[in-house]
């Protein structure tokens, strides 16, 4: 069973913009895949269909065999607990510490504060931010903020990690570091899907690359 399967998926936004057209793809468990394409090609939309942030207008999206396009709203939180999401705009909460930001998914999943704290520190350690756990996100550099975002994505030990332009706002050295981090997660069995417009970055990894062009998978 593929980790992610798209069958003839189309997404048309209200207003008529057609973001995806007849997209069909399979991503096997443990695979690392780059999703490239010009700005507006539909990369973000494709990623958003996986955690049911958006729903497809046509076709079927399966995640670990579950049809997430037709999933009941009440079941969506449980789907998302098994997915790690790294957003282009990071979406860190600035009213709380780095530690509390990473804690949020575990608190929502109902872990005891003690177990959760252990896992938060383990996640912060993995991204090299253990000594910054008390810092406010605003006090962190761009690269550190991105790493904090990754720590929050992996703290739930997801089987699938999705990242939308994770290196968009950081310099090349840091981008390499971030990518190395994703490769490490992939090596321990996590399925990783990274959307990026940076073809050079994708080319450096011996991974499958899917190219989107005006909403369709380019051959």
């Amino acid at each position, binding site marked *: 069973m593929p980790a992610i399967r798209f069958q003839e998926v189309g997404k048309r936004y209200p207003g008529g913009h057609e973001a995806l057209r007849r997209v069909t793809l399979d991503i096997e468990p443990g695979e690392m895949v780059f999703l490239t394409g010009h700005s507006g090609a539909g990369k973000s939309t494709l990623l958003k269909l996986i*955690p049911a*942030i958006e729903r497809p207008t046509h076709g079927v999206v399966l995640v670990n065999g579950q049809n997430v396009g037709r999933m009941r*709203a*009440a079941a969506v*939180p*449980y*789907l*998302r*607990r098994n997915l790690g*999401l790294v*957003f282009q705009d990071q*979406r860190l*909460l600035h*009213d709380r510490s780095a530690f509390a930001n990473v804690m*949020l*998914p575990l*608190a*929502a*999943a*109902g*872990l*005891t*504060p003690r177990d959760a704290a252990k896992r938060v520190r383990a996640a912060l350690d993995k991204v090299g931010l253990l000594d910054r756990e008390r810092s406010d996100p605003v006090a962190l550099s761009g690269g550190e903020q991105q790493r904090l975002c990754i720590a*929050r994505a992996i703290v*739930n030990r997801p089987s699938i990690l999705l990242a939308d332009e994770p290196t968009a706002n950081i310099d090349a050295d840091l981008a390499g570091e971030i990518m190395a981090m994703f490769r490490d997660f992939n090596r321990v069995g996590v399925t990783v899907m990274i959307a990026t417009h940076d073809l050079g970055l994708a080319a450096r990894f011996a991974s499958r690359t899917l190219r989107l062009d005006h909403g369709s998978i380019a051959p």
Partner: protein
Amino acid sequence: MTSWLRHHGQSLADALRRLAQEPLGSALNALVIGVALALPLGAFLALETVERLVPRAATEPEMSVFLDLDATRADAERLERELAKLPGVRQTRFVPKDQALAEMGRTEGLADIVATLKRNPLPDAFVLRLTPGANATEAADGARRLGKVAKVQIDSAWVARLQASLAFGRAAALVLAALLGVGLVAATFNTIRLQLATRRDEVEVSRLVGATEAWIRRPFLYSGAIQAVLGAGVAIAIAVGASLYLGPFLARLGSLYGGEITPMLPNPATVAAVIGVAALLGLAGAWLSVSVHLRRLH
């Protein structure tokens, strides 16, 4: 189950922490809710104060039957038997004219007048006590038809009037309470709407990392309930303060009428009821607000 309980605890703590972070705003909210709740609570306590002044026994209808001045002892004995047979009469008590005059002499302010009288102007009389709920007018008409009866007076009419006034007062207080209850729900609705607006990012991120709607909603519900409970506390404080302030004035008024009037303080049951109702209304306002606005955030 334990994680559910734990989150209730965390939500309560979170709501309290956020209240403490904005002491002025929270205090003003509590004050607005408190003043709104103090009005019906005050009205209720005022009604209780008046109600205690009404003698309980007088709620059973009573009437006086005055005999003609020339009625004899034999007439009185006959009348006693006939009056007892009237519908609704439970008890008859004969008040001879001498006893009536003596009682009048003991009444404050009338002693001097009684002392100046050369002869007793009062007639013999019967005091009839009717069964509760009996038709006093019908019984009075029956008594008027009997011989040697000069006048029949339904003594409990003023009690009935007072009771009707109090019933009206209670109903009016209930309308006031209902209206201000709606106001409390609206106030909480708005407060929670503002909280949701300032915590929009948190709601959105929580959803993205797998929080259920119930989990997201919970701290806001606690917040609404806590604010209403704080408001109830303010209302009770206002009521107690007003009672203590008005106490001496009422006592003076009471002494002029030869009685004693003390204002009612809210008893523990009233306090519990006010807090409980406020908490439920606050919860309802928060629930409505969260239901409407969280759906919009989708």
